[in-house]
């Protein structure tokens, strides 16, 4: 199918992963308009970076709502972004060797950052930290 002049053309049916990726891009993109822009507005417009410190984060992540929110934002943004980088590599990195290197780097990076991002959110517990360091 030819591109209609917007983004990439929808991949032909039967190519399961590419069709899924095409739809995922659009669905996650719409969700991210809400999640990412609200995040930016809260962190940079309502508050500013001058107000954000450990206490600010601890206060926010004291609420399960914001933990879930940030986890969804992390997952959607990272998968959406990595999928974009994947498509760009396929478009611009033509030699097989460089492409393998770029793809390997991309997926390893995606995996590592997904894990440390999830750990940061899920394991965050200021009370446990204070207890462990009390008397230091």
């Amino acid at each position, binding site marked *: 199918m030819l591109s209609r002049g917007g983004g990439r053309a929808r991949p032909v049916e039967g190519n399961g992963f590419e069709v899924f990726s095409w739809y995922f891009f659009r669905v996650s*993109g719409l969700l991210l308009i809400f999640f990412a822009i609200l995040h930016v507005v809260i962190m940079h417009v309502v508050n500013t970076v001058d107000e954000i410190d450990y206490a600010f984060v601890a206060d926010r992540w004291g609420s399960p709502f914001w933990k879930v929110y940030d986890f969804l934002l992390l997952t959607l943004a990272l998968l959406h972004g990595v999928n974009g980088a994947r498509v760009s590599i396929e478009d611009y990195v033509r030699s097989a060797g460089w492409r393998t290197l770029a793809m390997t780097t991309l997926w390893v990076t995606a995996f590592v950052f997904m894990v440390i991002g999830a750990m940061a959110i899920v394991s965050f517990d200021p009370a446990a930290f204070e207890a462990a360091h009390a008397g230091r």
Partner: protein
Amino acid sequence: MQRIYRGREGMISWALHRLTGLGVLLFLLIHIADIYVVAYGPEEFNSLLFIYHNIWFRLMEVLLVGALYYHAVNGVRIILIDFWDGAVLIQRKLWYGGIIIFFLTFIPTAILMLRPVL
């Protein structure tokens, strides 16, 4: 065909979409790394915040938000063209409409973001 297409709204919007997308992804990776430091406690995390208070980093953040807004507006344009036949006919109007929405949202955001240093 290619000569006519080159450099027109469609190509500019495409190039900007990729550029802003990769820029936002790069910031996301930095941002995941910095928020990971929160697990090491208040002193360690707060000691890194001078980066965010640096004037050049603030300006980069404004650029980042601009990239995000552009990517969002243009993404909606792409989805409209993908799923609505009528959008194909008014694609150039959609592009200029998107540019207007971008500036109407980005300029107030940029001013508010920079208000502590303006």
